[in-house]
């Protein structure tokens, strides 16, 4: 089976010009749980945007889900995101005016799944993350930990090959952070590949593999 993501000599330059990533080589296999660790300014957010195909590399090869993204149109990229990647953000990004159930169901909005089916699967996943009694609640009526669990459910509802979490515990207290981390690592049992981007070593320690990034380069060891 092909790896979930492969990066070969990936570089990213922003207008300036400022090169933020200086040639990244990285392969993540199916079922792996990987932490990408680095201080702020290290280029890890840029790396997240590339792995999540929210942005294209300036040069180098990026293969996601077996597809070389250089060959894909923006429309195909959006389709690949919808089908392959589930995002979990530090700020949750839930829609305030939608119920928990609809927020999760929206994870399938751009996959041409009928509304009834979206809701049914959303209910299933919300049950699985332990929010079976919170379907009708709006984000404002939920605690921070609950909101992040709704966001995780939204990332999972499309059964993506890859879940990409950006500082998932960054906005939570220790207890809620630990619960969210536990939930994420349970995904492993379902065979979901997980990449967590963090600056917190204790989060990284919960993963199978740690990748350290500093000044736009991958370092074999923590520096």
């Amino acid at each position, binding site marked *: 089976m092909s790896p979930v993501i492969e990066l070969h000599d990936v570089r990213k330059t922003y207008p300036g010009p400022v090169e933020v990533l200086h040639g990244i080589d990285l392969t993540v296999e199916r079922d792996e749980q990987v932490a990408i660790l680095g201080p702020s300014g290290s280029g890890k957010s840029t790396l997240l*945007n590339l792995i*999540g195909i*929210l*942005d294209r590399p300036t040069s180098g090869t990026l293969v996601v889900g077996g*597809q070389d993204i250089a060959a894909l149109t*923006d*429309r*195909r990229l*959006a*389709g*690949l*995101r*919808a*089908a392959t*990647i589930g*995002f979990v*953000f530090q*700020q949750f*990004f839930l*829609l*305030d*005016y*939608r119920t928990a159930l609809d927020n999760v169901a*929206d*994870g399938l*909005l*751009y*996959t*041409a799944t*009928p*509304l009834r089916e979206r809701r049914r699967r959303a209910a299933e996943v919300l049950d699985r993350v332990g929010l079976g009694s919170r379907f009708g609640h709006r984000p404002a009526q939920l605690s921070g930990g609950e909101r992040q669990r709704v966001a995780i459910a*939204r990332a999972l509802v499309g059964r993506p090959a890859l879940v990409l979490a950006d500082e998932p515990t960054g906005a939570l207290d220790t207890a809620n952070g630990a619960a969210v981390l536990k939930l994420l690592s349970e995904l492993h049992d379902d065979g979901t590949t997980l990449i967590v981007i963090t600056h917190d070593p204790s989060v990284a320690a919960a993963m199978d593999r740690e990748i350290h990034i500093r000044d736009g380069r991958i370092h074999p060891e923590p520096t």
Partner: protein
Amino acid sequence: MRSSRLAAADLVRVSLLGIGARKLRAALSVLGIAIGIAAIVCVLGISQSSAAGLQHELDRLGTNLLTVQPGQSLTGDQSTLPLSAEQTLTNGPYVQQVSGIAPVSGTVVRNKRIGSIITGGISIKAARPNLPSVLRGEVAQGVFLNAATSNYPVTVLGAVAARRLGVTTLRPDTAVRVGGKTFTVVGVLAPIELAPDVDRSALIGFAEAERAFRIDGSAATVYLRTDPEHVGEAAKTLAAAADPAHPDLVSVSQPSAALSARLAAKKTFNSLFFGLGAVAVLVGAIGIANVMVISVLERRSEIGLRRALGATRGHIGGQFIGESLALALLGGLAGCALGTLVTVGYAHYKHWEAVIPATVLPLGLAGALLIGTVAGLYPAARAARLSPTQALAR
């Protein structure tokens, strides 16, 4: 591998949800368009309704009434119609009905104790019994003169005359002083649109007028109903028929011409108010564009999230165009409803039949949709152009 897809029903749902989440703002932002479209619907509806009311009135009164009166001679003297004029006009071409009135000198007062100087502008006229039928006038109370009562001192008052004399309810003993003699009031006429001078008169029979006031029995004003298809031809021959010796001293007029002219004026477009409505709609469109631009700025993270969930640029643009369209459509519907309501209310108040041209409401909605598209284009393009990484950036 499949491209990202968003079902049409979901696009509509997503667009409407954005509005539902900000109801007050949506309501305020559609106000401009609603008022503008309501104004346009009102302008068209009320002018059409009033034209229809006038048309209805014209149909009831008929345009085939002609008036034959003595004109002025070259020297400016008032001429008179020959004694036989009424008779010869009856035989004129296309003439269907003839009636006449003749002025009688004297004043009309309520009773003896009121001096004859206070005339109240009421004149005495001798009238033929068929006058209401020719003028399509209605008798409001009592009866009109007939062949028998024309021989006695009885009178029928015009609507204005009755009001000025204070005759509100008829009793068997209701009487007024006509030319210094007591006349019993047997009837009161409703207002007659085509002959306002009759409204200000006390009408008495020709026979009584000849006996009591010594008039010669000829009509000074002859009213004719002609064949409606040949009013113009009839009008041309009537002067000669009335006075074969001096046709140039006879004036023939069509009292309904003034009403017809008013009708034509109503039908011309009320462009000033229409223009004001258009300006209101334009301001409304700018309002919607404004609100949409703000909405795009506020919802950056929602846009970023949707892109992360797999939305294409087109889906994002479509969502914001859809919101703008839905807002404009809401405004259009509210405007059409409000405009219709005002038109119906005003027409009811004026006793017209409410008429809203069939094309106005669909045109109003189509205009609203066009405005929605135009107003939404720029904000939607901004939303679509926003890169997902920028939209998600903290």
